[in-house]
């Protein structure tokens, strides 16, 4: 007998108290919990997102679509970044004002990425109640490693379109078959005497740009 059959057989014998006719949905699950915590206008939802992002030490910026290229240019300049990795789907105009910065392709290896100063991406959805941005590897977000290896991540969120209130709403919008990365503030650890330290392995600086039309 294979281990698979042994384990499945043990499970069936362990569950002799479960009536043969019972199907999974006979076990009641009451989803009486809230879809959203609170009643907010779209503006208030964006406000809450900004607050919660900042609370977990992401740096939050707000600007309009037209201001975006110059805002990105100044963020990279402040940081002194000379190289930035961008996935293919990031619009060229986002970097139109960055004359001194070399654009690195997302196909780069881990080692190549290790030498890159910054990464610039969009996102799939942002969750206000938890201060989270979710990346789903779409064309403007790229493969997972590019937002992991460089030490500085600039993530552009379109408000209010890409913002939801809650975790349940976010899951509805996301496709399980895509690899997802949920990011809530920069990488952190509290492993040394519970002192919170930003950044062990992921980007130590996370800048979120909330862009409105």
């Amino acid at each position, binding site marked *: 007998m*294979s*281990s*698979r059959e*042994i*384990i*499945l*057989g*043990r*499970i*069936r*014998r*362990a*569950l002799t*108290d*479960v009536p043969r006719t019972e199907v*999974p949905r006979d*076990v009641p*699950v*009451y*989803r*009486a*919990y*809230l879809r959203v*915590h609170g009643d907010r206008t779209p503006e208030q939802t964006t406000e809450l997102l900004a607050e919660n992002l900042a609370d*977990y030490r992401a740096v939050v910026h707000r600007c309009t679509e037209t201001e975006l290229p110059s805002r990105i240019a100044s963020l990279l300049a402040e940081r002194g970044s000379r190289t930035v990795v961008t996935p293919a789907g990031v619009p060229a105009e986002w970097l139109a004002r960055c004359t001194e910065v070399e654009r690195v392709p997302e196909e780069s290896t*881990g*080692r190549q990425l*290790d030498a890159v100063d910054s990464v610039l991406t969009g996102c799939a959805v942002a*969750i206000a*109640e*938890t*201060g*989270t941005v979710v990346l789903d*590897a779409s064309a403007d977000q790229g*493969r*997972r*490693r590019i937002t*992991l290896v460089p030490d500085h991540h600039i993530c552009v969120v379109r408000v209010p379109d890409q913002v939801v209130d809650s*975790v*349940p709403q976010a*899951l509805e919008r996301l496709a*399980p*078959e*895509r*690899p997802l990365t*949920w*990011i*809530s503030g*920069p*990488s*952190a*650890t509290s*492993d*040394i*005497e*519970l002192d919170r330290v930003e*950044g*062990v*392995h*992921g980007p130590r600086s996370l800048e979120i740009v909330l862009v409105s039309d």
Partner: protein
Amino acid sequence: MSGAEPFPEAARVSVRNAQLRSNLRHATHTIRAKRAKAVAELADWGRLRAAGAAIKDRTLRHLDHYLEQLESAVTAAGGQVHWAVDADEANRIVTRLVKATGETEVVKVKSMATQEIGLNEALAAAGIRAYETDLAELIVQLGDDRPSHILVPAIHRNRTEIRDIFRHEMGHWGRPAPEDLSDSPAELAEAARLHLREKFLRAKVAVSGANFMVAETGTLVVVESEGNGRMCLTLPETLISVVGIEKTVPTWRDLEVFLQLLPRSSTAERMNPYTSTWTGTTDGDGPREFHLVLLDNGRTDTLADQVGRQALRCIRCSACLNVCPVYERAGGHAYGSAYPGPIGAILTPQLRGTASALDASLPYASSLCGACYEVCPVAIDIPEVLVHLRERVVEGGSATRDGARVTIKPAKGHAAERAAMRAARWAFEHPRALRAGERLASRTRGLHPTRLPGPGAAWTASRDLPRVPPEPFRDWWQRTHGGREAK
């Protein structure tokens, strides 16, 4: 980790009593207060908790169905599924998979399942080095030590000790720590970042666990803070995930419950810094090969116990550790397994049985104050299971071991009874011990367990936590020579 080290041995190991105690106290009290705040933010916490428990119950009552569904979904998405009846088989599978890649090194992201089965030791025996990449696990590994807390495994080490470990040991494992490394947490974290980065960039194989597996979609979920998980899940070419069969949830939608319950109960955050989900393999992004090893190792035996099976709902948040007065005094090592604290006291004796003196004593390492039940995000009635297991230890009865019904002999007159007596005495009769414990002590003294009144009734009334007695467990243990001269 051997896992079978007897209680007295475990207690004798530490020469850092005062340090351990104060670290643990600081840690548990800090997290406890933060958790209460994070939970209070959600008006529907009680309903989320009930839904979490119900989803897990639904899964467990139809686990065969969900595992088959999970297997086909993972396979359809390009992953390979392996089934391991016990620790040995899981270790053999992982070893074989690593060997097939031709590699002799793997990077690992903290996983309690691999600790439970002693994977690192098994790999070492086969000439494969496993590098732990969680900061705390790195501290533990470099210090040739054992984890003492689910969430902060190196909580028994202070910053100066960590600096010394890094200075002396990092060089033996890879990139050495800088000569002038100070003991500031930021500098220590930076040293770990540099030391491990080299390993991540070189690694071809990673081993992980998972917090959840979604049967419907074949998606695995890893919840973490540092980014070492993301490194392991995305940079190597081969990913091997070893996951207990009870980590299954039926649907994608069910994550809306657990991704709210877990971070707030665990690190007391609205959301942890990083959560990764993946379904099989993705072209051009992440590992080309994905193996899922489904682990039984006593879980089906636990499932066979209608009272004890609720322990399989556990999502390993560690909230029960942080409120447990016995854990706070005993420290994680005394529980002798990968699972310390109240959850360890009910899970280990079910996964391993109660044949050894240590395992038989674990259900007694509690005052039944009920604080663990109060905070548990999936409402595991830990005191109920403790009482149930005590009864089995004392009176014997039937249980399931390795899939077969066995009859447990009553512990009376055996080593198991003596170990249980010592643990019970310590938890109950300690001078000025736990108020709630004292109240129950008269009813349970002498190892004659009495069924406690209806689920939760006795302990839910005593919400405030017991005070901590002046003498810690380890000191007491040494003074009384392992409890033999107790009082």
